[in-house]
């Protein structure tokens, strides 16, 4: 039962988080596949994943020129809906070449 509830809760949370995670990965704020690993993590490791996720959100907010809260707030959702270039903002995928 707890697993189901957790999954149910996570599913709701995951839909937001999943959408956001795809966005953050697509545009170079999170390494691809980091979230799957994150879900399986327990204890400290899960905590450090949480930190990465928050940091990625903050970096996006800072790049996009909106208030840096670390939360998936209205301004962040609005930014994510805006039309944009498909190139990543940070070239993590390509070995972080700068």
């Amino acid at each position, binding site marked *: 039962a707890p697993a189901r509830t957790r999954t149910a809760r996570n599913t709701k949370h995951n839909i937001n988080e999943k959408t956001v995670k795809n966005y953050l990965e697509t*545009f170079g704020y999170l390494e691809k596949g980091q979230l799957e690993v994150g879900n399986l993590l327990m204890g400290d490791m899960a905590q450090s994943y949480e930190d990465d996720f928050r940091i990625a959100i903050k970096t996006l907010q*800072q*790049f*996009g*020129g909106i208030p840096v809260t670390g939360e998936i707030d209205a301004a962040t959702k609005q*930014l*994510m*809906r*805006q*039309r*944009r*270039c*498909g*190139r990543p*903002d940070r*070239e993590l*995928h390509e070995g972080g*070449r*700068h």
Partner: protein
Amino acid sequence: KRFAKQGEMWKHTNLTWSMSSRLIPSQLNLHETRHVLARALDVWEQASRLTFTEVNSDEADIVVSFARRNHGDAYPFDGRGSILAHAFFPGSGRGGDAHFDDDELWLLQPKNDDEEGTSLFAVAAHEFGHSLGLSHSSVKGALMFPWYQGIQPNFVLPEDDRHGIQDMYGPKVKKKWADNPNYRPIQTPPTTTTTTTTTTTTRRPYIHYHDRHHTNHRHDYNPRNPEKPNYYPTPPTYYPIPPHHPRPTPETTTRSVTNRPARYPNVGHEYPSHPRPNYPNHNVPKAKPSPTVRPTPSSDIPDTCNTSYDAVALIRGELFIFKNRYHWRIGSQGRYPQYPIEISRMWSGLPKDLTHVDAVYERPDKKIAFFVGRKLYLFDSQYLVRGYPKPLTHLGLPESLEKIDAAMVWGHNDKTYFYSGTMYWKFDEEEGRVELDYPRDMSMWKGVGYNIDSVFQWRDGKTYFFKGKGFWKFNDLHMRVEHERQLPSATFWMKC
């Protein structure tokens, strides 16, 4: 410094670009799309040493394509969603290429506020920044800011982007005469008299870019067999005097003055007996013998070597230049002597009280269109076509339009264009009406400005815009004048 350089950059600065031969836009006019892309590249050309030349090859440095969803790279598009386009940093293969989401609603013209759609110019200018090696900038307002911001009509590259591109490729070098490969400084003959025999200094005048590729024959359009132009022995190739050349001294100009007829010949005068090139089956309109009435020589006879033009047109392969009530005619042997003569002697269907014509062009069906004020006079050779003149509104032009400044069939797409003031229209010859999404702003024709006098396509296939006593040669591919400064019309067209 907020711009971001990615690392790779092009090793050469004269870059080539092309539209993909396969992935072309499904909703857009390909020709207009290419013009928008050329203008987007020009944004970077104006700010750096880079130059961009359109080629017809998928091997170009920058290949532009329009695709949907998964299209063969790691960046699938998302339908009409948030991702608009992407581009690859400099490099071989797909390096430099730019991909646009064909599901998006692309706009080729500045949009009205309430209009939906995305400016192709704005997005292309951004993507080409990536093609040149720039990454995203977090400076709001910068062209390389990742999120779409639209674009102002009088767009100027923001400072952050300009610093970025100049950091990579250096600032634009102002072109000097001396950089022009064809430039030959005039050797001014030595002023001191020399006692020993010296070889005369052969002046190597500036070869006009127009003649740069002149073969040792001049060939002209041969109406009987366009494939086989008429060849004539080359008259001395024409060299204009570059603007800095010292003005010829008064005595060197008397000759040219005496060459001109002392005064305008009486119009009752027998038709000029000069040897006319024979045009066997050439329905060149013959000038009608003039009325016996001898008009008094008029003060509005234009000075051939010092005038602007009301209209210029290539008619049956000959150049006709119109000013006030008169016109000159320039054939393969050069300017006909005894000209200018009244326009009405050739086209008597024009108004008797004609003071000038606004625009003239030869239609694809070989009829000759004269625009005079709010009216169109259509001639079949020198005969007014039944039912004409007609009002400009007959062509779908607005009621408020006072006159047409210029008209031409543009060699680049064989479409007809009308120009007036700050606007221009594309005219559908089959429909007989201007196309719906016009007028548009003249700024599309970069460098010629507003209120032009005339425009036409010369035998060399190039487009020439006239304003005042000068003209520009126009680069159809780049949609801009070849040279910022006008060249003097009299020296080039009237051989003054």
